[in-house]
């Protein structure tokens, strides 16, 4: 039942609005609203109960193991949330003067330094509000760099076919053409194909490493040399940074620019689909183009101040009204402070240990790994192609049945080049018991699929709804309630 359907005319949470209705003066009648908007009319208790009950219809990290590949669903420390919610942080206006902002600015400044160190880059801007906006900033900087040198012939961005959809979408948003190159059966990029497409028209390449295939790109140095020799730049999609945090730095691999997903690697909550935060880091060449604002210090080093286009005349500009998802940045800072240098160093180690352990258990149980001869990174791919062909039970069916066993499904059908795949990312914060429990559930579902495929293909049974009619949703579009309809 919708909150609108619980409404009664004239009801609202009276403690929550001004006690009297103030008079309006001096506004011409034709600019005033004539009809009230159809918002809910409910009491405070009705609202509290409605949304509390809605929350219980969700899977979440706090309630379930959530091994969603490429999304890094690790524990979100409550301490970070509490610290970011201190009244002084919540009440600071984004345009408050620097005299009343030193506390916040100092946190931002320190996080900039920490992120420079863990990525091996020369400069950081925290303003992009999500990974995709970080990508936009990064590719826009590549464009600005070539234009500043008067090299306007570079119209192409190279993207491996296994890349996240955001990579080609971003390149196009920045006015580039996309050249996709294939990935070899062992998960590495096809270097010959790269050499065929690279040239004076190449602005850069966008890569994820470890790739979305869940393996480390072993030829990264040669790729770097090939693209750099042709005058292009290397973009690092930080979606999988968790795998290598503290172990390898993108800057040392030869990347010129990258974005990080703080909601993944730095454990800020995913919030049911955001807010995220997608800071960018750059090497020396791209420093002048960083998006604004950035936090710097005053000349005498005594206090912190905003750097804007007056300090960075070649900046690609501003990506939000203020300075991005400030509260998420604060949570990421707290996470880094809690972990410290040793803790950050071990993120990559334990996320990799967990993934390799699970991969081994799955392989031993008879599941087919997509890249069995490779080390898993922080995630790995299982293909259920055999089950789909012989039993008629697809990856989607396994995914839905997992929900009945109390596990969120891994990422399904991505990357597109592995048929019927599961991309599984356990993260470092899960215990050995959870990992084993998930594998046991997969073994049980496999048995069900062999004995009674229908049971699996009609799952789930324990959720608030069964499988939904997506075709009806798209053909008979209903995206807003109205009491009239």
């Amino acid at each position, binding site marked *: 039942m919708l909150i609108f359907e619980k409404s009664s005319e004239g009801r609202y949470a009276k403690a929550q609005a001004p006690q009297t209705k103030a008079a309006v003066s001096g506004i011409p009648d034709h600019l005033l609203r004539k009809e009230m908007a159809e918002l809910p009319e409910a009491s405070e208790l009705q609202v509290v109960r409605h949304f509390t009950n809605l929350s219980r219809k969700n899977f979440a990290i706090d309630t379930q193991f959530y091994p969603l590949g490429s999304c890094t669903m690790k524990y979100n420390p409550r301490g970070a949330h509490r610290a970011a919610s201190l009244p002084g942080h919540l009440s600071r206006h984004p345009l408050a003067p620097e005299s009343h902002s030193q506390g916040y600015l100092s946190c931002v400044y320190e996080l900039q330094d920490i992120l420079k160190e863990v990525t091996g880059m020369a400069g950081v801007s925290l303003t992009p509000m999500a990974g995709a906006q970080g990508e936009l900033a990064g590719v826009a900087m590549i464009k600005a760099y070539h234009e500043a040198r008067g090299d306007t012939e570079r119209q192409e961005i190279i993207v491996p076919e296994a890349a996240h959809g955001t990579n080609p979408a971003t390149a196009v948003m920045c006015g580039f053409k996309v050249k996709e190159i294939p990935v070899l059966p062992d998960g590495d990029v096809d270097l010959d194909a790269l050499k065929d497409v690279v040239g004076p028209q190449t602005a850069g390449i966008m890569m994820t490493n470890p790739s979305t295939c869940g393996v480390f790109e072993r030829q990264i140095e040669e790729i770097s040399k090939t693209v750099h020799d042709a005058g292009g730049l290397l973009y690092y999609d930080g979606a999988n940074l968790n795998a290598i945090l503290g172990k390898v730095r993108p800057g040392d691999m030869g990347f010129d620019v990258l974005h990080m997903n703080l909601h993944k690697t730095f454990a800020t909550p995913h919030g049911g689909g955001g807010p995220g935060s997608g800071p960018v880091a750059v090497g020396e060449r791209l420093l002048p183009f960083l998006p604004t604002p950035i936090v710097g210090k005053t000349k005498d080093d005594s206090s912190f101040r905003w750097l804007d286009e007056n300090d960075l005349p070649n900046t690609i500009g501003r990506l939000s009204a203020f300075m991005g998802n400030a509260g998420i940045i604060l949570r990421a800072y707290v996470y880094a402070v809690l972990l410290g240098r040793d803790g950050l160093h071990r993120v990559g180690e334990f996320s990799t240990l967990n993934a390799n352990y699970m991969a081994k258990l799955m392989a031993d149980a008879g599941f087919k790994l997509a890249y069995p001869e490779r080390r898993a990174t922080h995630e790995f791919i299982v293909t259920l192609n055999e089950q789909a062909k012989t039993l008629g039970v697809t990856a989607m069916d396994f995914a839905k049945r997992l929900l009945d066993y109390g596990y969120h499904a891994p990422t399904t059908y991505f990357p597109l080049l592995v048929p019927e795949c599961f991309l599984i990312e356990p993260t470092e914060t899960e215990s050995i018991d959870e990992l084993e429990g998930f594998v046991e559930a997969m073994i049980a579902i496999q048995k069900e699929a062999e004995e009674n495929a229908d049971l699996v293909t009609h799952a789930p049974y324990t959720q608030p709804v069964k499988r939904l009619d*997506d*075709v009806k*949703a*798209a*053909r008979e579009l209903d995206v807003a309630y109205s009491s009239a309809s």
Partner: protein
Amino acid sequence: MSNIPGELKYLSSHEWVRIEDDGETATVGITFHAQSLLGDVVFVELPEVGANIAAGDEAGVVESVKAASDIFAPISGEVIAINEELEDSPETVNSEPYEDGWFFKLKISDKDELAALMDADAYAEVCEADAH
């Protein structure tokens, strides 16, 4: 592949073309094979009547729940009609891809282009290769 009418011409991107009896008009749609790859069609975007399009141009988009494909113009010409019925009943593309599920009609501007199109046998081979 079962349903590839012999009288039509085809593109490897799965559009079909019918030359109407007047010899001047071409009707364009997508094949049975294409609609089965896409699954339930939920929306079709068509060109505007009066638009001049060239062979190989993107002339529209066909959308299912999980995919979207561009529709390419098989030959050049002016769009003289579009199938407005598809707006309310896109499922016709699934049920009758060669009849009521047509997309648009062109006034053919260069008949020589027809020679470059595939016949049914050649297209059947494309579908066959797809299946592997």
